[in-house]
């Protein structure tokens, strides 16, 4: 009789398990039939009333039923879980054509980007950054650079004056002076920064940026200068870039030269960008003038040096294809966001 009872519960449970629609329902059935106070457990309790010899038999029936049901339960549970996961995944479908959760990232001004780019290239050659103030003494901006008062070379730069002895630096060269006076040679520096000229038109801003390199060592030649400039331009404009030096005049260098690089657009064949010449004027350079060494208290010709410098705006216009210099100062976000 007990055996039938066990069987009946087992069958009923089996039916229920197969009928269950969800893991939750299945579990409820499990509790109902196999739980602590489930039907099988109740039957187990009734076992106490049985004669001693029937007890082992009864235990066996119950255990068999439990084993069968456990197996069925776990089988059903797997089926239901898979089914539930399937429908859950369907219901969780997202429209990933919605825009991303954007962490807006800003960027550097193109002048800064290019300046860092340039510094990084020169850094590989061992140049390191030095800075100086924008309001400079006449002495550091002119006198020490072999541009005495009443020298016609002063006409080469339209200077903003603060008072009789101070100017807005017209070039980054005063940083050379400051460095030569405070550090011992050998010296290998690059001086980036804002400079000022009393001049404003289609191609000039009164406040623009320059970068300047200076090397002081035992023997320094024009070939070292040429090689450094050539390396630099190949890195900045590509390995096919050529450079040329043309004699020029700067009071603080001798020999002085202007340097051109082959046109980035036509590669030197001549086009509208380079006005048919194949070359683009980039900056000025030369060997450090003995008078500059004397002013800074460095022995010449025991120590020799070269210096070169150029404007960043012009180079940025060429590198990025910018056609209006005023864009650098307007800080129009539509412009800035392109870099």
């Amino acid at each position: 009789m007990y055996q039938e009872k066990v069987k009946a519960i087992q069958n009923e449970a089996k039916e229920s398990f197969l009928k269950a629609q969800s893991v939750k329902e299945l579990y409820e059935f499990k509790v109902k039939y196999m739980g602590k106070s489930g039907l099988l457990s109740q039957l187990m309790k009734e076992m106490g009333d049985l004669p001693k010899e029937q007890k082992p038999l009864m235990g066996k029936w119950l255990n068999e039923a439990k084993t069968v049901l456990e197996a069925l339960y776990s089988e059903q549970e797997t089926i239901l879980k898979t089914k539930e996961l399937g429908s859950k995944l369907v219901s969780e479908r997202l429209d990933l054509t919605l825009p991303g959760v954007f962490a807006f990232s800003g960027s550097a001004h193109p002048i800064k980007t290019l300046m860092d780019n340039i510094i990084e290239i020169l850094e590989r050659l061992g140049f390191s950054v030095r800075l100086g103030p924008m309001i400079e003494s006449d002495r550091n901006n002119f006198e020490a650079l072999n541009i005495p008062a009443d020298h016609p070379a002063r006409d080469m730069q339209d200077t903003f004056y603060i008072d009789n002895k101070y100017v807005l630096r017209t070039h980054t060269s005063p940083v050379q002076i400051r460095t030569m006076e405070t550090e011992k040679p050998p010296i290998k520096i690059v001086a980036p920064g804002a400079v000022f000229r009393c001049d404003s038109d289609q191609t000039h801003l009164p406040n623009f940026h320059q970068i300047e390199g200076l090397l002081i060592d035992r023997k320094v030649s024009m070939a070292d200068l040429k090689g450094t400039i050539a390396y630099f331009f190949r890195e900045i404009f590509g390995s096919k870039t050529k450079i040329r030096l043309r004699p020029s005049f700067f009071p603080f260098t001798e020999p002085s030269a202007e340097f051109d690089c082959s046109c980035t657009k036509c590669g030197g064949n001549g086009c509208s960008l380079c006005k048919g010449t194949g070359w683009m004027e980039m900056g000025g350079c030369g060997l450090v003038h003995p008078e500059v060494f004397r002013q800074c208290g460095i022995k010449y010709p025991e120590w020799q040096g070269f210096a070169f410098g150029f404007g960043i705006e012009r180079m940025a216009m060429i590198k990025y294809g910018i056609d209006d210099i005023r864009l650098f100062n307007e800080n129009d976000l539509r412009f800035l966001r392109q870099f």
Partner: protein
Amino acid sequence: MKFSLKWINEYVDIKEYLLEPQKLAKILTNTGLEVEEIDNAKEKFNKVVVGQVMERGAHPNADRLTLCQVSIGSGVVQQIVCGAKNHQVGNKVVVALPGAILPGNFEIKISKIRGIESLGMLCSEKELGFSQEGEGIVILDKEAPIGKSYAEYKGLDDIFFEIKVTPNRSDVNSHFGLAREIACLTGKEYGFPIKSFEEIGESTKNKIKLEVKDAKRCPRYTGRYIKNVKIGPSPDWLKARLESLGLNSINNVVDITNFVMLELGQPLHAFDADQIAGQKITVDSSKPNEVFISFDKSEIKLTGEELMIRDGERPVALAGVVGGLNTGVSEKTKNIFLESAYFVAAAVRKTSRKFGIETDSGYRFSRGVDPESVLLAQNRATEMIASLAGGEILGDIYDIYPERLEKKEVQVAIDFVAQQLAIEINPEKFIETIKKIGCKVSVQSDGMYRVKPPGYRHDLELEIDFVEEYARLLGFEHIPEKLPATQHSPTPHNNSYTNENSVHNMVQSQGYQQAINFAFVKAGFQKTILGDVRKLRDLGLPMSDEPVALKNPLNEDVNVMRTSLVPSLIKNLDFNYRHDVAEGRLYEIGFVFDGKEGSYGQESRLSFVAWGSHKGLWSAKEVPVVFEVKSVIESLLLGLRSKSWSWQNLESAKVPDFLHPGQSASLFYEGKTIGVVGTLHPKIREEMKLRCDVAVGEINLEKLMQGQPKIPKFSKLPKFAAVDRDLAFVMPIKLTVGEVTNEIRKVGGSLIKDIEVFDVFEGGDVPEGHKSVAFRYKVQDPETTLSDEVLLSLQKKVIDSISQKFSITVR
């Protein structure tokens, strides 16, 4: 300077280059005289001739056009339709014939204008490319020869070079000088043909007494008396030559002095000898407070320093710069005293700079003329005056030149030149090259030379100058390229460059775009925006009451140095907003300036402007934009590993004038206030018609960067789990979240790690005048797992202490 190749060809044969001027330009550019522009006027005015209007009638089909019959020489008369009205029968005009190509690539063709055939065009100044505008056609002199090529008539049958003559090369500030340079570069012969003239028996010295009192500033002075000159217009060729080179024709004598200046580089001055008081000329310093009136009638108050030419009574010329009105050559002049002198460059330059007088004469003297050409120029002008103005030339001229100016010999070692250029040098070639430029070379010892430069080369003074000279003439392309082999050990970058770069990176990563503005601004705008600067000073942003001003600003929009970056950023905001950028985040790192005469300082600032929200984004949560500025600063502080910082709401009275008095906070950092953030004052927003939320901030970057970069210090990873606890308080609106947060931190001690605010709201069941603020704090003990008792007692301690201190309740 503008050069005529036709003229140069008179001293050196450059015919081959007249066909290919680019070739000559290349030679000059490659040796340091940059040819900036080639103007081939000859080609430009091909088929443009002088014509005469013979008939002027109305166009049958157009009221506004005239129908002209124009004689173009050799008896040819052409019918031309003209749109101008200023021409009359008999006028000499400029005719562009069919086939002419005028500036702007404008080709003239035979055409029918309103049904009438027109065989050319009568030209205006604009059409000839001389000016940007021009109504009416050019009417020429009555004497203009019909049929003559217009270019030839105007001296434009020529090729012009515009050359950037560097200040060191004063020797090529003249046509003869450039001819000499070209001869040297091309290995040609050059020469200056001196024409003779006859002197009459009289002596210059009997007419004028000359004394040079300041021989230091005037080492050489020559003077000649020429009598009975006939002042009048210059002949066409002279007029044309001066005009084609940009000088105005004045009268024959003045034109001759200008001609000789362009020819030899030596400025000359002609005095009306009858106006020289006391028949006496003195070269001396001016007298203090004396007034000199220059020929263009400007009054100049002298200081006693300037080198002057004086007569018996008064100053008659500012030596080398400009002549006086009182003794200038006019139509009435009969006798002249012609000056050709050498004034010291620095003296002339000082005077011309002091009074801001820029003349062709001053330009040349201040760069240095050739003392040896002074007399040559004197004689050249004399000869021309005699032939063109019919003067009688007096002899026994003055040439006061007490001490001959000679160039110093320079010792040049060929090894040094070779080392500096990194090339091998053949000694013979070296000597030959240096001699070619007019130097005298003697051998001192093997490989060591003594070189004496010519008097006109003021730029050859040192051994290194000959390195340049040799390189220039050799061609820089012969110098090899190599990377320097150096003993130098690389050093770190300047600390502030490295530090600022990390700030740039951190700020950009928070969505801010870098701006770069001018270091100078408009004084009025800066003042209006900043208002009372004392408030900014109190916030750790030092600035003086008055900004550092420029003595010579470009214009009034950029006349003082910045004392804050905020005004520039507001300008940027305005610009962007006007250009439909409705939302933006900008920052700038830059210097502000301070100081007084003789001592100036600069300090770096980090400033922000943020406007508009990212609204429209489906994921965005809107908060006042000032919190974004605050958070970019906070993330920077975290990135810089700063420990102690806090924000303080500012009392209205202390809020800078450009910020909202109720929405502004200062940043307290490592013991001092170093900046401020806030919402832009609604007043400014309204004035600028900004219809969006705007916040700005400025931080004293110098102070923020003290002690940077900070090296990270590792702390052991916690072994025991942290527990989050939430607490909400109902508190008066006036009570700040900052105060409560600080108190929680204080009470919690080292067990409380992070405190966050995750909800703030008013209304609902919260009583009026109150807000509900929900805090979440993290509790963690590095040594042990937290028991429930510890957590509960901590929570109780926090609640009790907050409730008591602020008399508020837990929600």
